[in-house]
């Protein structure tokens, strides 16, 4: 069911020999990958393989020990963390990272406003422009939180906070979406919703998805990379990867044991 991908689409993000060491630990060792526009690139691997670390490097949260990151062929590894987002690289976090005291809508408005500008306008009311609210509401509705827009974020359940997390990234309207386990902690229905959403989005954005929910990853990925212990194990289409014995051993386990 995976549409065969033509590799002539634009490379949005590229890593060349990317390394991240924590003291002696090589959390990420010599990773060279390409992420294409309008594709969803899944990344899987056992716990501690360095997936989150990779995303953290791609979004500028960490600085690499060695190696380069190219965004549309420009090196960006040295720019400031906030500049990554300005270039259209948005991310969601594995550990919920929202504004707990603000309403869901306000959470998204902060995100939308970065794109819409006017952040150094000291006098004009933040409430005066309805466009902003609309875009934010739209993002909330996409992830299924439309009905909770005026709830304070701290008061919605964990799973809902995960949904909000994604809505916030969407609200920045990025070109590249880095999603770190977006479905973790979500219920079935919500997961399904996100999967549907990603299905739509993957033809519009360059998406990098880290996820342990195999059903979702297999269903969504155009490309799939497997990492183990900071090393790149293999990259390929879902079918290629699924049948790779090394992947089974390191990650999936033998067929029937996949839960």
């Amino acid at each position, binding site marked *: 069911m995976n549409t065969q991908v033509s590799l002539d689409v634009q490379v949005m993000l590229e890593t060349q020999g990317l390394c991240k060491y924590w003291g002696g630990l090589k959390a990420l060792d010599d990773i060279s990958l390409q992420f294409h526009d309008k594709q969803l690139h899944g990344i899987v691997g056992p716990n501690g393989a360095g997936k989150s670390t990779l995303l953290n490097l791609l*979004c500028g*949260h960490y600085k690499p020990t060695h190696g380069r990151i190219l965004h549309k062929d420009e090196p960006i590894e040295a720019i*400031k*963390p*906030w*500049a*990554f*987002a*300005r270039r259209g690289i*948005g*991310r969601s*976090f594995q550990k919920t*990272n*929202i*504004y*707990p*005291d*603000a309403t869901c809508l*306000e959470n998204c*408005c*902060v*995100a939308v*406003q*970065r794109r819409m500008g*006017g*952040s*150094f*306008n*000291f*006098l*004009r*009311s*933040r*409430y005066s422009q309805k466009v902003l609210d609309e875009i934010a509401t739209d993002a909330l509705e996409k992830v299924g939180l439309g009905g909770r827009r005026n709830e304070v974020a701290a008061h919605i359940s964990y799973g809902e906070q995960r949904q909000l997390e994604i809505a*916030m990234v969407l609200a*920045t309207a990025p070109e590249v979406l880095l999603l770190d386990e977006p479905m973790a902690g979500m219920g079935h229905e919500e997961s399904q919703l996100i999967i549907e959403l990603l299905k739509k989005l993957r033809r519009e954005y360059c998406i990098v998805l880290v996820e342990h929910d195999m059903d979702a990853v297999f269903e969504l990925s155009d490309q799939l990379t497997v990492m183990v212990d900071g090393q790149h194990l293999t990259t390929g289409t879902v079918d290629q990867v699924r049948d790779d014995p090394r992947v089974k051993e390191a990650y999936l386990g033998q067929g029937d044991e996949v839960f």
Partner: protein
Amino acid sequence: MFFNTRTERIFIWVFFPLALLLPLFLAENTFFVSKLTSVMIFALFVMSLDYLVGRCGLITLGHAMFYGLGGYLFWMIAPEYEAVNFWVYTFYICMIAAAVALVIGFLVLRTSGIYMIMITLAFAQMAFYFFSDSIDFGGTDGLFIYVKPETSIFGLSFFDLDNPTHFYYLCLLSLFNTLIFFRLLIRSRFGRVVDAIHENPGRTTALGYNIFLFRLMSYVIASALGAYAGYLFTLQYGFVNPSMLAWTTSGSALVMSILGGMGSIYGAILGTFVYEGLHFSLEHLTEHWMLFMGILIITMVMVFKNGIAGYLEKLLEKRA
């Protein structure tokens, strides 16, 4: 809604009209007018701190540096015996203080939390010792300032700073304007980002904001206003002393702002008036005023969860 809460609206409708009328009743008691003036000046200072600490989450123990700077700057840049214009010097002082804040902010805002508290303290202490060790600036004895600026704009003069009542109204107006200014600021899109940074700086960076810039901006604004308060203080009595810059001044301001209700802005006025009011009445009552002051402060922390403003809000807000 311009003012966030009903409580705030009530407060503003009670406080400012009252303050406006008060001098009429106190006409013969010049002391109370001048006492209220100095409390309002300090409230303005506390308000600028409250914005920094409560809204931006930038806790500083060095804010008094700008308060003192406002005073010393005036002494430095004003000619000794010539008449100067109040508005022009307000502008100069705020600008110079802003420039200083830009440099210091650039350094101190690299740290955060307790480390920032301490590094702001460090800079303030350096400034404190600079003024108190230097003979040119009068050392620990401080300096007298003999000029009183005139206040004309385009040749029209409304105020006479020598007249305590006029000065009172000037300070009241300044306080009111500052409150409105901060309200506007908080309600603005800039304010939205400031709130976001306060709640979750990491997330805000990830969304693409250069949080350093916003913090620096806030720091500069608050510092300039802090200096303006110090300038007003200096004008009131024509006296500057390094103790204006001491960390204890920052500390008292912090106490008043917490007492008033952090981040509520109008709470700064509440906090300052309550604190100063208690201080004034207790010290006239007993030599051991500290004991009662201490007990009252402790009681208030225990009872008020979010300062006086928070308490009032609990009483006055309609349940949603």
